[in-house]
């Protein structure tokens, strides 16, 4: 009898402690969220007030960009909370359809490749065969899972590599994201999927909402799967998601659809290319010639400004980081000199403030290196005033 009472008291005590811990975490989270929301709201309010003063157009554009980023951050916080609330209420639906799984994986890696490169990390993709050409998945939600795991791995890994590995077996897709980061101890690993928990051992790690992995685990569950984590302190971590993904076939129309890019040789005009890197010039010159454009190349910003004053180029493509005169100053000088054509900036640095600075300096668009022919084609079609033309296969898909 006494033993049963003791066990019951112990059970109640454990329950009480768990409830107190949950309440503490929620209060902590509310404090955190309040602070997180107050920071961008203060930023929006402050910069909006400054923009009402008599300031220059450049400063106003820069401030507008800061306001836009603050709005994006708030939206991410709100969306994460809404996602969690929807899942808690059982209102999130999973909608599957046929997806080209290789294109899906490549797209996820391409999305985060600039983020990895900026930290000097290798981000690679391994697809183990056999992998069917098409799987029935909810691409939107699975992409959310993938991007969350990969961006977490990049955030926590100071050096080395991040690998996305995929395999398929018995109608289930296994996705593993491995990193060479600092890893986690057993206690952290045990709680890592709980809402509002973060491995706060580094400053960068504390910048999220603390909901990403909780959402990821619930999404995996909704997709008929699960997620597990393994980690060795000092060596890295691996997160593996397994979801139901039956083999299927792509619809005929989907097979033929391609992004709308200018067909080879369909652009026309004489463009100026400015880049101090001769290898980059050789590559871009090849792409521009294939798109049908005539090219004159120079190797620094000063030569680019002089060339822009000497003849009316249809468009100027310019690296932002060049010797003698950088792309920002060159774009400013070209605009001051009356150049009214399109300026397409190229940069190896994807930091938002630099992209915004390039636009403020007079660039109409900015592409982050590495640039592909398709990206150049789409940007130039717009800057040269050509209606983007679809490739033959893309047109056939829409017409037929």
């Amino acid at each position: 009898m006494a033993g049963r009472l003791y066990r019951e008291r112990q059970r109640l005590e454990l329950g009480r402690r768990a409830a107190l811990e949950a309440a503490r975490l929620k209060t902590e989270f509310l404090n955190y969220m309040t602070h997180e929301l107050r920071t961008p709201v203060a930023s929006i309010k402050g910069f909006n007030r400054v923009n009402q003063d008599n300031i220059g157009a450049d400063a106003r554009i820069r401030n507008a960009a800061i306001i836009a980023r603050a709005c994006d951050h708030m939206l991410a916080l709100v969306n994460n909370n809404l996602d969690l609330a929807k899942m808690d209420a059982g209102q999130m639906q999973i909608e599957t359809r046929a997806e080209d799984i290789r294109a899906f994986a490549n797209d996820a890696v391409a999305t985060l490749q600039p983020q990895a490169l900026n930290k000097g990390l290798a981000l690679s993709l391994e697809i183990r065969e056999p992998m069917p050409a098409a799987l029935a998945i909810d691409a939107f939600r699975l992409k959310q899972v993938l991007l969350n795991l990969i961006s977490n791995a990049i955030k926590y890994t100071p050096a080395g590599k991040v690998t996305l590995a995929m395999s398929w077996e018995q109608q289930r897709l296994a996705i593993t994201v491995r990193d060479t980061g600092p890893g986690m101890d057993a206690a952290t690993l045990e709680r890592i999927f709980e809402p509002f928990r973060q491995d706060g051992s580094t400053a960068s790690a504390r910048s999220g909402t603390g909901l990403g992995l909780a959402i990821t685990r619930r999404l995996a569950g909704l997709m008929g799967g699960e997620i597990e984590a393994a980690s060795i302190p000092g060596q890295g971590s691996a997160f593996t998601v397994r979801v139901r993904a039956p083999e299927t076939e792509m619809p005929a129309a989907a097979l033929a659809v391609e992004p709308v890019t200018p067909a080879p040789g369909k652009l026309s005009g004489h463009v100026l290319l400015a880049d101090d890197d001769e290898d980059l010039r050789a590559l871009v010159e090849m792409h521009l010639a294939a798109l049908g454009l005539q090219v004159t190349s120079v190797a620094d910003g000063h030569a680019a400004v002089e060339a822009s004053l000497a003849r009316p180029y249809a468009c100027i493509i310019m690296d932002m980081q060049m010797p003698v005169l950088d792309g920002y100053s060159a774009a400013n000088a070209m605009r001051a000199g009356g150049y009214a054509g399109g300026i397409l900036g190229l940069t190896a640095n994807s930091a938002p403030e630099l992209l915004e600075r390039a636009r403020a300096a007079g660039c109409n668009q900015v592409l982050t290196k590495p640039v592909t022919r398709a990206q150049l084609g789409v940007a130039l079609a717009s800057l040269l005033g050509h209606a983007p033309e679809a490739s033959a296969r893309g047109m056939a898909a829409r017409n037929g």
Partner: protein
Amino acid sequence: MAETGPVVIRLDAEMQEIVPRYLQNRAADCVALRDHARAATFDEARRLGHNMKGNGGGYGFVEISRLGAQIEIAATNGDAAAMLTLAEELSAYLARVQPVYGQGSSGQIGQTP
């Protein structure tokens, strides 16, 4: 143990015109990078790294972009030892890389099988 096998990069046929020179230039960068590390001329080393970061992926060599980014960071930090290590890594990669040219002409980046 360091990997030693060939790294095959599949590229469009048209890339054959510019890739050999591109790889020769990277080999020259290895030599220059070692010189910069010994002479502690970090600005020039940072420029080399920055350019590699920007051009590697476009040619289909994502690993060169990755090494370029690390070289840029090492040079910014004035870390000559890291620059020497990265020059060796780049040199080892160049010794293993084998471009294979196909039939396409879309200018897309290559992949390591």
